[in-house]
């Protein structure tokens, strides 16, 4: 873990540029396609249309229709096709237009991609990335706003990655493409619009290494994806009140950098876990249990979590906003803990 760790295996430049999250992802795709001819893209409306959220805009012109393949609306078929191609040494990157649609491909992910290596031995490997625009906040309603990563933690054989910053989006996506395992890659739709400074040139960020967003001695806040940004804002609110919050951005849920979380909790003795998804059986439920197992002696107060309630995402923007955890919610939970 490090404060601004974008070094990883690749050498990050000292010079920075300002990019949208979407552009950072596009750079990762383009660089990996340049680097390795086995990398190709598949998905609905990602070529001619440029991707529902514009992530792949321009890549068709750059790499041609063989490598930027528009597909029919056939999530199970397309993910299955990608798994088949991956077994034969290709490195497909599939875009599932909304993470909600990944439900249609669960058979291929859970029964095939995740199982090959175990059932068929080391001869079978599935270097596959499934990119999933996820999350609420854009009034897309109950079927286009979900955050479903918790399901995939429950399937051994998969990796789950969820960047919070543009730099991480680029570096983690590049690592995911180079990984020999199937990777579910979450892209929070609200983050797509954020414009940030990222290092020039090529760099990768290893999967399984958390990022310490800010240091603090009173309370630890653990989050990932969009919620890591909310946690960072919460830390600023708390700082003004004289409460030192240490924010850990997990970056990936599998592999999980539990050591980074335990180290921070050992220092602060208090922890708030945050996720955008629903509460029961969620990522925080797993994280909380891991901390119970591995950091019990260090905990000075009960573990707290801030999550969406166990309800579908409603359409009306006022209702939707009430579902998604905010910096204020996180700050309130951390404040109560720090004062306990």
């Amino acid at each position, binding site marked *: 873990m490090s404060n601004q760790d974008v070094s990883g295996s690749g050498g990050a430049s000292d010079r920075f540029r300002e990019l949208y999250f979407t552009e950072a992802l596009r750079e990762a795709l383009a660089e990996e396609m340049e680097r390795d001819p086995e990398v190709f893209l598949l998905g609905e409306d990602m070529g001619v249309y440029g991707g529902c959220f514009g992530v792949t805009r321009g890549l068709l012109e750059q790499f041609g229709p063989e490598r930027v393949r528009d597909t029919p609306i056939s999530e199970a078929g397309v993910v299955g096709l990608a798994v088949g191609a991956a077994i034969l040494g290709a490195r497909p990157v599939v875009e599932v237009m909304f993470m909600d649609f990944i439900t249609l491909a669960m058979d291929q992910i859970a029964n095939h991609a995740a199982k090959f*290596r175990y059932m*068929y031995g080391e001869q079978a490997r599935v270097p596959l990335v499934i990119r999933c625009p996820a999350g609420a906040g854009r009034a897309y309603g109950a079927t286009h706003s979900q955050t479903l990563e918790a399901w995939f933690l429950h399937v051994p054989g998969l990796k789950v990655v969820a960047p919070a910053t543009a730099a991480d989006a680029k570096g983690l996506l590049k690592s995911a493409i180079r990984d020999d395992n199937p990777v579910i890659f979450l892209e929070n739709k609200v983050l797509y619009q954020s414009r940030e400074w990222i290092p020039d040139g090529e760099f990768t960020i290893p999967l399984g290494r958390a990022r310490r967003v800010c240091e603090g001695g009173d309370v630890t806040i653990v989050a990932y994806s969009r919620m890591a940004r909310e946690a960072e804002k919460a830390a600023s609110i708390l700082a003004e009140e004289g409460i030192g919050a240490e924010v850990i951005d997990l970056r990936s849920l599998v592999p999980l950098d539990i050591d980074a979380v335990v180290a921070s909790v050992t220092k602060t003795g208090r922890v708030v876990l945050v996720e955008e998804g629903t509460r029961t059986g969620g990522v925080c439920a797993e994280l909380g249990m891991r901390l119970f197992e591995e950091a019990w002696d260090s905990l000075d107060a009960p573990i707290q979590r801030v999550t969406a309630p166990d309800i579908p995402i409603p359409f009306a923007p006022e209702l939707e906003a009430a579902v998604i955890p905010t910096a204020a919610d996180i700050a309130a939970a951390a404040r109560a803990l720090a004062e306990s």
Partner: protein
Amino acid sequence: MDKTLLLKWFYQMKLIRTFEEKSAELYAYGKIGGFLHLYIGEEAVATGALATLREDDHLLTHYRDHGWALARGTDPKPLMAELLGRVTGVSKGKGGSMHLCDPERNFWGGYAIVGGHLPLAVGIAFAMRYQGTDRVVLSVFGDGATNIGEFHEALNMAALWELPVIFLCENNLYGMGTQVKRASAVPEMAQKACAYGMPTEQCNGMDVFSVYGAMQKAVQRARAGEGPTFVEAKTYRFRGHSMADPELYRQHDEVEAFRECCDPIESLRDHILREKLATPEELEQLERQAAAATEEAAQFAEQSPPPPLEALYEDIYAQPLDGPTAGKERR
């Protein structure tokens, strides 16, 4: 046709038959657990179809896969060991009867989720063309798979992109215990390929020559870059869906009638003798060889150890993770 080829087919079909009979016996003795789906009666389909593939072509099948592995040339010993869940099995004892594989022979598995492997076959074909080869993919499934969504997604994409896939449907008249006419709106499975403008071949799956002929056309088309073909082999399984099947859904007379009229091995024997390509003694010699290979496989399997407990945590990820499997110390 070439005598050597026909004798090879006879041996292969006989090997499948004896291997399956032996595995049924081991199942009855409780030495094979779980599911066991026998291929008895359908031997001509795998034998005829695989005779049209090159060694570097690819194969994916449904869970009734023992016969396909044998016809592909997989050693019966590790096959039988897999059925018994032994470490010497083709999948190191972690796959089982329904999940056989032999990557060295480009046999990418038996699949137990009905129809789920059809998109995988399309993906392998996609990769073959992407990588600039002329290799083709044979995707084998039953009549039941034609009713599932992934079947239609796979056929559409393969036809749309003219990929080198052969979709071979083994129509054995029953999806587990449900007759085709009780599950499918159309009686001929090949009718379903027409929606995708895909050429079709129908053949007699109880006749190795008929399967071979239909498959040759399909493979030629795929190899030439002319896209996928749907081949329907009408066949019949002489045994139940699995060893656990009491066969309440079909008449004993029906099974006997098929055995009497259409045993693919007896048909091939008659052909060979009629054409005087071999003597009855020569064929009996081949049958003895098949029986010996089966016995040897059973002995090998029974004498092999089960996988060690350490294997539980092997081959989950390309490199082991610390995190998710760390709980193993605390099981």
